[in-house]
């Protein structure tokens, strides 16, 4: 293709016979580069054009359900059923959202949001706290059986957690935590330990030994070093594992479904499912409830995307 164009440029240049040899040469070169640049631009933009087309199609497929839910919450059921394809509500109905947040369904919504929040705070705090302590010994202390213990935790990643569910209910019942938010938060924290330890260990290892020696000389004990020096230095890694743990506990479904037994203890995912069966014929209201329920996750995502991505890739790309 390029050679063809060059020859046409050449012949075109050759027809300008009256020009002096030097001038002719100069003009050919100029046209050549101009033409080549244009072709280059065309080729580039055609590949980036197809790239954009594909990416935009996929992005729309991702966004359609979300936009459908957000705008559907502003419609009434007549609009939703009558013309599902019309994008913009007409008229705009605000009662669904206001009912969920401040009106008839507000108590249910805020209670479930609070339950989710309590479980997330306790579970994430426990996971990150316990995993940091454990990762510290795995990374910076030498003792027999260290790798065996570490392997035990990594095994936790290898099998489906649903396996432990039935006995877990009986266990939680026996220790008197059935129907208690703590009864969900504790197992949730336990299930989060493997991934957190696996991500933190290499990070803790990378902090220079000299720093620890210097701290020891200045009279720092192991805990002092851990608490005053290691943790502050590891803040980016801690942020990463916390974000991962927040997403996992916030979205957890199976554990709360089994371990919580009353509507007043439900978390948001359970609440949304129940709401959708309770208001089967009121789709607009379900959509409004759904949107308000996922709003915290989306806001959190926009703020913490970087940590989330770095956590997942550091955990998985290294293997």
């Amino acid at each position, binding site marked *: 293709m390029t050679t063809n164009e060059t020859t046409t440029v050449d012949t075109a240049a050759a027809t300008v016979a009256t020009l002096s040899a030097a001038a002719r040469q100069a003009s050919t070169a100029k046209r050549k580069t101009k033409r080549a640049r244009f072709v280059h631009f065309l080729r580039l933009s055609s590949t980036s054009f197809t790239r954009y087309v594909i990416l935009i199609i996929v992005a729309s497929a991702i966004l359609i359900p979300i936009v459908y839910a957000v705008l559907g919450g502003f419609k009434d059921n007549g609009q939703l059923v009558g013309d599902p394809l019309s994008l913009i509500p007409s008229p705009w109905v605000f009662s669904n959202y206001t009912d969920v947040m401040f009106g008839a369904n507000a108590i249910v919504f805020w209670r479930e949001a609070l339950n989710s929040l309590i479980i997330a705070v306790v579970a994430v705090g426990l996971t990150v706290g316990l995993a940091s302590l454990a990762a*510290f010994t795995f990374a910076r202390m030498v003792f027999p059986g260290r790798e065996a213990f570490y392997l035990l935790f990594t095994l936790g990643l290898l099998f489906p957690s649903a396996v432990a569910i039935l006995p877990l209910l009986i266990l939680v019942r026996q220790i008197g935590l059935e129907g208690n938010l703590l009864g969900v938060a504790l197992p949730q924290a336990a299930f989060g330990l493997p991934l957190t330890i696996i991500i933190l260990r290499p990070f803790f290892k990378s902090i220079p030994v000299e720093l620890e020696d210097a701290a020891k000389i200045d009279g720092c004990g192991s805990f002092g070093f851990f608490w005053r020096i290691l943790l502050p230095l590891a803040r980016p890694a801690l942020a990463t594992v916390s974000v991962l743990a927040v997403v996992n506990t916030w979205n957890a479904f199976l554990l709360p479904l089994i371990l919580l037994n009353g509507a007043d203890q439900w978390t948001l995912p359970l609440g949304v499912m129940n709401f959708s069966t309770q208001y089967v014929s009121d789709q607009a209201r379900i959509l409004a409830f759904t949107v308000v329920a996922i709003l915290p996750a989306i806001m959190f995502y926009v703020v913490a995307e970087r940590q989330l991505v770095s956590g997942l890739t550091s955990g998985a790309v290294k293997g």
Partner: protein
Amino acid sequence: MSAVKAIPRAGSKFRTKWLTIVLFLLPAVFVFALFVLLPVVQAAHYSLYKWNGLQPLDNFVGLKNYQTAFDSSIFKTAISNNVLIIVLSLAIQIPFSLFLATLLNRRFRGRGIFRLIFFLPYVLSEAITGVVFSLMLQPGSLVDSGMKSAGLGGFIQDWLGDPNFVMITLFVIISWKYFGFHMILLLAGLKGIPRELEEAAMIDGAGRLQVFRYITLPLIGPTLRVSIFLSMIGSLQLFDMVWVMTAGGPLNASNTMAIAMFKSGFKNSQLGYGSAFAVILFLFGLALALAYQRFVLRRDIEGAVTAYNG
């Protein structure tokens, strides 16, 4: 005198070290053992009994629960559904993720926005996603009328009500939620490939497909294998979305192992039988993980070690 003094000092140092290790490690080990390891062992124990969870655990039946499970059609459907999702994920979802990752592995305007959008579904709860898709897939709702207006009315299915089609529908929604996750992993892997390698191959006359086949694919291999592994484990424990959208129906057609376990364990109060499902799921996952570790991931470890040496 000084020697006598030195011995207790060394001893106390030794004791402090062990005290630190125990105090640091014990809480995590305790919580993990109590809430993760113990239940798995107990599941194996319960699976040998016929038990409704309330009476004393005294009706020992040996391996009868396993026999019943292997003979039941519910079990067969459930495990083949899990396998189906694994196969479809490997055949469609992961290649698709890799394709998009290669598209995003260039500098261009809007790349950050696309990455943000593609990865967004990962943070949404599976249960809530399931509720929204259920509404969209109701007969006559968004999906149906969209297809009708696009002239595809003839392809409309009873998306969640047709036993032959329900798993395909679920697979598409699972891919909607998780392809971005795999894309992010693979994108990070692609970033680790030096651009010079691809450029050198191009200069040597390799076409785009050849560069992909002989340069990109082998070098993305380790990440790809991890991605495949995570996808398999995820497909095995599939529960939330299926429970919300179909609860395993219609007629148990979309049961997964976890759903079948949950139904027999909680809905029918057959805790022994349900535990047998759990143990089978555990062994299946473990076998898969070990085999994968042994035959596939080991190459990566060896590769990494030789790379360090060389």
